């Protein structure tokens, strides 16, 4: 559809037609939230504004159900001197010495990976790597903790190979070594596989980039892939409900990643960083342009004017609501001074990356957007980015918790093997169980050598990457989690996840420093799930205090359930450690005959 027949819902029109019915419920906006939007704006939102509020105030972007529990990670964090950026930014940053800093974060892409395993997993890797890139860092590795239904279930046969190929396909094409992860099978993940991805990057301490739009008059540049109609199911509802009957045209249900585009985007950004050409930068993830513009504006001078019709499109029929909600991959937004703009464009041109000025930083405190000259958005960006709803969701300990805990194996049900024969049978059963079986089929699909700094990877307690060839400085990373333990006792389960990852890092000879976590749970609207969540957060916070490892960032994934059946509560914890000379790493294999074996601990 051409722009001529498309009548944008302008601010003027919104003011003139306060009683227009808006399909906010279809966008997941609750009655009281809609009322708040109207109150904030002093009028009804335009459909573009409604699109923005709906995505920015979604659970995914606003953390409205989890916020009250996540706060303690920061408020009760252990006092450390190496934390350069804590929770809240795109990723946390820690000082690892020698002028170097490391940024790392874990994220989930669970549901998309169930719908389309290959693309879901691939774009999951793409998304977390862009978060790392956004901090100003060169991404240097990935890890992929995975959970599937039973190994012999038909759906696992659909999901697992696709997920593994997707993670490999995208990560390998980015030239990022995959240095660890998990493959766990449990019936609770049937229909709700967990695809978590962790990325880590390295940068000079002095060169951390932040997502803020400072300096009135500076340019707002959109670069990378063109915007397509990906992931905008909701916006189509909006467009069709509000406007012409011939809308919407067909919109893709699945995002397709383009790892090649992301690879050139990485190299392009690193060259831009090296010449210090941006004053702020943000990746476009979920909530795409809505998120990038509001977060940049809200964190900076506070104002931004955007000409939305300048955004390069892959599909010319997209309307502003859709452009604002599009989740197209491999895009970034930068704030660039007028002096730096020509050089910025030159570097983009060098890498064949499309870059377009779509707006200007202002000092108005308002985020304004126009569509072919007409104003379609005029909001205070902070109301979108920071003042979303916060829920104190009710929670209570499940009635069945006591019974579950009491249901401990006794000697009759789980007798210790008596004698060699039984021991042998037990060992055979264990090595044949999918959770303990050899994972070579998975690991061989991942490149763990690229960049030539992988000191430890698959099969080791944690992955280890050399940062400096001169000094041998390196980092180690491990991810762990156990949904069964966490279901039995969410508080302790979360602590065990941390303890395991911490031990895995320590076992390689590195000193554990900091934590990232991916909290995979069922529906927050279920008070019993909410209790599991609250307990897990409390447990993790307490354990982090004791171990002196702050949480630097992470991700919450709710609604991992089928009907009323939630997955086991599955906090996956990633621990980052530092080692001053990777040559002194310890492998987990027996290296020479005749070594003495010691069992440490109880």
């Amino acid at each position: 559809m051409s722009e001529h027949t498309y009548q944008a819902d302008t601010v003027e029109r919104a003011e003139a037609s306060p009683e227009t019915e808006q399909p906010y419920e279809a966008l997941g906006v609750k009655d009281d939230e809609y009322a708040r939007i109207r109150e904030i704006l002093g009028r009804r939102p335009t459909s573009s504004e409604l699109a923005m509020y709906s995505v920015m105030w979604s659970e995914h972007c606003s953390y409205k159900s989890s916020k009250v529990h996540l706060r303690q990670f920061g408020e009760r964090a252990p006092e450390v001197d190496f934390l350069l950026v804590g929770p809240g930014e795109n990723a946390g940053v820690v000082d690892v010495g020698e002028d170097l800093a490391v940024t790392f974060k874990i994220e989930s892409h669970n549901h998309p990976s169930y719908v389309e395993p290959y693309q879901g997993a691939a774009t999951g890797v793409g998304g977390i790597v862009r978060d790392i890139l956004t901090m100003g860092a060169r991404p240097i590795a990935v890890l992929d903790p995975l959970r599937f239904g039973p190994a012999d279930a038909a759906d696992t046969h659909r999901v697992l190979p696709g997920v593994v190929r997707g993670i490999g396909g995208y990560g390998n094409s980015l030239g990022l070594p995959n240095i660890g992860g998990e493959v766990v099978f449990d019936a609770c993940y049937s229909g709700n596989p967990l695809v978590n991805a962790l990325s880590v990057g390295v940068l000079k301490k002095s060169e951390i980039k932040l997502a803020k739009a400072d300096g009135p008059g500076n340019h707002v540049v959109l670069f990378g892939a063109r915007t397509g109609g990906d992931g905008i199911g909701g916006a189509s509802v909006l467009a069709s409900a509000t406007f012409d009957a011939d809308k919407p045209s067909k919109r893709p249900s699945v995002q397709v990643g383009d790892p090649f585009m992301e690879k050139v985007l990485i190299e392009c950004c690193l060259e831009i960083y090296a010449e210090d050409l941006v004053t702020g930068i943000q990746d476009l993830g979920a909530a795409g342009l809505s998120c990038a513009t509001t977060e940049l504006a809200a964190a900076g001078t506070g104002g931004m004017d955007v000409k939305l019709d300048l955004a390069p499109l892959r599909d010319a029929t997209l309307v502003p609501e859709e452009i604002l909600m599009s989740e197209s991959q491999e895009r970034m937004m930068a704030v660039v001074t007028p002096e730096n703009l020509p050089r910025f464009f030159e570097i983009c041109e060098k890498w064949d990356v499309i870059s377009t000025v779509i707006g200007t930083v202002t000092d108005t405190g308002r985020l304004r957007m126009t569509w072919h000259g007409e104003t379609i958005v005029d909001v205070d960006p902070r109301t979108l980015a920071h003042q979303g709803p916060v829920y104190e969701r009710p929670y209570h300990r499940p009635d069945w918790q006591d019974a579950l805990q009491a249901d401990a194996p006794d000697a009759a049900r789980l007798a210790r093997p008596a004698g060699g024969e039984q021991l042998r049978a037990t060992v055979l059963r264990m090595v044949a169980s999918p959770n303990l079986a050899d994972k070579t089929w998975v690991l061989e699909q991942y490149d763990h050598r690229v960049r030539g700094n992988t000191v430890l990877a698959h099969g080791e307690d944690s992955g280890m990457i050399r940062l400096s060839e001169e000094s041998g400085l390196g980092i180690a990373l491990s991810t762990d989690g156990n949904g069964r333990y966490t279901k039995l006792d969410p508080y302790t389960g979360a602590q065990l996840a941390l303890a395991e990852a911490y031990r895995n890092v320590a076992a390689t000879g590195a000193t554990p420093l900091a934590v990232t976590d991916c909290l995979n749970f069922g529906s927050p609207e279920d008070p019993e799930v909410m209790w599991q969540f609250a307990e897990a957060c409390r447990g993790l916070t307490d354990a982090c205090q004791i171990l002196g490892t702050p949480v630097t960032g992470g991700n919450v994934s709710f609604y991992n359930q089928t009907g009323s059946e939630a997955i086991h509560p599955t906090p996956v914890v990633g621990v980052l450690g530092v080692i001053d000379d990777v040559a002194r790493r310890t492998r987990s294999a027996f290296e020479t005959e005749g070594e003495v074996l010691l069992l440490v601990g109880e």
Partner: protein
Amino acid sequence: MARVVVDVMLKPEILDPQGQAVNRALPRLGFDGVVDVRQGKRFEVELEGPADEAALARVREMAERLLANTVIEEYRVRVEA
């Protein structure tokens, strides 16, 4: 023996990085006048028997279940002339 062809293409609304890469390469090689390129798959299926309605129905099912990923792709089955 009959040959049935199954063409599998990404749905038009789905991003096609491969087609785009080709499209971007063409001008560099001196080929102008191309607006768009999309890249898909072509399967040539040789049947034991004739390509009658029953056989075509089977190939269509094959396409639906194995040859195409219908979440992002569409397919067309036809008897090769």
